[in-house]
């Protein structure tokens, strides 16, 4: 299609086509077409994303360029690309220059972003207004997972090879004494990313156990293991529901919800058929759950109370990390390809007619035979 137009018209032409498709979708003519939402190009190798406290800005890390793409979600475009300064490689350490920023959490109170730097192995506090590194906490290996305590003063970090959960004082920028020692010394499994989640009250921390097949529950005060939630798998993703405090664990055959009180399974969402999903998001209002299906380039949103699909979207490339905006009206999804990487901004506030999609592809979650209702 674009081959007819001079290159200087390409941008306009894409917009025109996007408007055409969106217009068709809005008019109901294109009921068979999945919406792709608003697509924002970001820097290569996006790793994670986080909303600002008011939800107007979205920060996306780029491991390749070591930048943060700051997206104005209302305008739907990148407004800034601050460079995250590189951390000097300490003598005697093997640092990987091809890796950069990866995980990110936002501290709205201090207007900071806490970013893991996987190349040199550090946790950085990045001031979002001055765009300067406030402090840097080195780690002997690449930090792969980060969990922020509810008080905003402590972060828990899991590195790639260390069998430790390390607490970091976010105020002073230093490691706290008393690491939580994970029992398995074999290191992380290659096919399961390390996942941690901090309980809503901050008193417990959940860590996926790739070898023990389950979830370890630790006390953040005593650093002791409280429980082991045995399963057949290690979770691909874990999220804590901000409304109930329940833990949601994503597995290869569905999602298990664990009650906050006793951390035992309270209810489950089982896939209707074989899906592949590594990433999950929960809306802050407790209404919605979203999963990225990376083999199908689709993102499905389900109503938590019914387990039925409410929205279905397609992405340009394989969808990965996804996150609801604080008000729950927007879903941001990373989709990274070989050449270009995108963040899709998906409207989940407007009801969507997904009749055609469901008739063709079926629901995401089905109550299995013998499970009752």
């Amino acid at each position, binding site marked *: 299609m674009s081959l007819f137009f001079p290159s200087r018209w390409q941008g306009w032409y894409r917009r025109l086509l996007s408007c055409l498709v969106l217009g068709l979708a809005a008019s109901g003519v294109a009921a068979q077409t999945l919406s792709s939402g608003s697509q924002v190009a970001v820097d290569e190798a996006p790793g994670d994303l986080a909303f600002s406290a008011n939800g107007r800005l979205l920060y996306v890390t780029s491991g390749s360029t070591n930048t943060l793409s700051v997206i104005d979600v209302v305008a739907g475009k990148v407004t800034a690309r601050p460079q995250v300064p590189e951390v000097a490689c300490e003598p005697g350490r093997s640092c990987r220059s091809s890796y950069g920023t990866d995980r990110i959490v936002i501290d709205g109170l201090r207007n900071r972003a806490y970013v893991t730097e996987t190349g040199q192995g550090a946790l950085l506090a990045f001031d979002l207004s001055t765009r300067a590194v406030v402090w840097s906490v080195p780690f002997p290996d690449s930090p792969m997972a980060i969990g922020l305590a509810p008080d905003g003063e402590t972060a828990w970090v899991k590195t790639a090879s260390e069998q430790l959960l390390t607490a970091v004082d976010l105020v002073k920028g230093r490691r706290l004494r008393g690491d939580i020692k994970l029992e398995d010394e074999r290191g992380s499994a290659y096919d399961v990313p390390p996942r941690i989640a901090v309980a809503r009250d901050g008193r417990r921390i959940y860590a996926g156990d790739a070898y023990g097949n389950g979830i370890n529950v630790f006390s953040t005060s005593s650093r002791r293991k409280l429980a082991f939630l045995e399963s057949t798998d290690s979770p691909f993703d874990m999220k804590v529901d901000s409304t109930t405090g329940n833990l949601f664990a994503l597995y290869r*055959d569905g999602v298990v919800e664990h009650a906050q009180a006793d951390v035992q399974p*309270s209810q489950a969402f089982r896939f209707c058929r074989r899906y592949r999903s590594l990433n999950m998001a929960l809306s802050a209002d407790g209404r919605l759950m979203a999963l990225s299906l990376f083999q199908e380039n689709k993102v499905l949103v389900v109503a938590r109370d*019914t387990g039925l699909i409410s929205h279905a979207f397609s992405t340009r490339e394989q969808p990965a990390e996804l996150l609801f905006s604080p008000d729950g009206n927007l879903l941001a999804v990373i989709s990274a390809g070989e050449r270009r990487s995108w963040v899709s901004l998906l409207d989940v506030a407007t009801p969507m007619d997904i009749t055609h999609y469901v008739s063709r592809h079926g629901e995401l979650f*089905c109550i299995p035979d013998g499970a009752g209702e």
Partner: protein
Amino acid sequence: MDAFCLRAPLLCHRQFRWLFFAFFSCPFLSAVAQVPVASIPQVERSAVDGYIDGPAAAARFMGNLSVYADVDGSVLIADGSASTLRRLDRQGRVSTVAGTPGERGFIDGDRRKARLSYPAELAQLPDGRWVMIEARGKGRSENAPGLRTIDRQGNVRRLVLQAGTTIGPAPVGHEARIAAEALEAKLRGEVRRAPKREVRELAPEWLLPSPSGVAVDTKGRIWIADSGYSMMRTMVIDTQGRVHHWLPGADLQLREIARAPDGVLWGASQNALFRLHDDWAELVMSVEAVEWMYPVDLAYPVEEGPTWALIGKVRFIGRKPQPPRVPTRPSRLPAWFTGLGFDQQGRVLVADRKQLLRLEAESNQLTTLFEAAESEYEGRRYAGRDVESLAVDSSGRILMVGERPRAVHALRADGSVEIVTGGE
């Protein structure tokens, strides 16, 4: 044997070959004597089993055949599996035009030296030569087929091509017809390809990454349906050898192209027929594609994982259990046009899976001329074979390949078929 024959062609001449064999096979003369001597000059057996030139009834092919009518009244048969091009002349004899059976290669030269590589699609140029699509890679589906020409003497030459431009604007009328899903696909992929970049990236070897259908128009230009860059596109090679992208934005997805007796070019996509003009395409008819999918729940059952272990122990949320869906096939599969031709009255013939159809000009409807029947063998039922190639010879017979893979059939008036040449 063939290398020997190249060095000493006299000994391999068909008039003397039996002497040669007799000399080297003395201990087995008794066995040789059982071969009817009279058959030697009539039938040319190859060193490859199952490859025989000679009278149509006795000729044998190796398979993957496609048929083309020559203006001189003969029929060219591309024997894909043998990597040869053969001719069924008006006297009813099959002979090898180019290539050596079983010796595959992409080598230019005269009839003896040239090696062919799975010839599959042919079209005749105004000067009588044929342009031929072959596979250059390891397999027929290898993504590097090539174009060569072959003249009446069997000389095979590679086409020298160079990058050209695009032809024609996008036909607005057709654009409106494109389904929303196609638009979505465009947004995903095709929009990224700017015209300048496409022309710049077309190195000579990759001008036509995967040609699948070929025709020659009245101006001598070669039209090619090409599935380059994961998209079906139509390319036109002008008489100077420049390759142009025809209607690059039209997304016609042509798979077959053929020239009607009146000179008009026709194209067939998966389920639609078009008349092709210099700078626009006219949609003549389309068959509604019946959507059929194997129920996904049954095709990809969910694994037994952590949630499976919780069945009966916790509450599950989602779609309520439903009675198991049994996959049922519709009475007709979606259209899949695989061949395109014209009868002597100029009516369009199209092969659609196991059917041979004719487009009726008055009603613009398709009439079924032939449908491959199911067969039964040892109590099991087998679906009939797809119609893979079709042509109309000088006597008006509709020839096609499909019922048996190593034979060329002719359609009888009653809708049945008879073998013209070849066998099991």
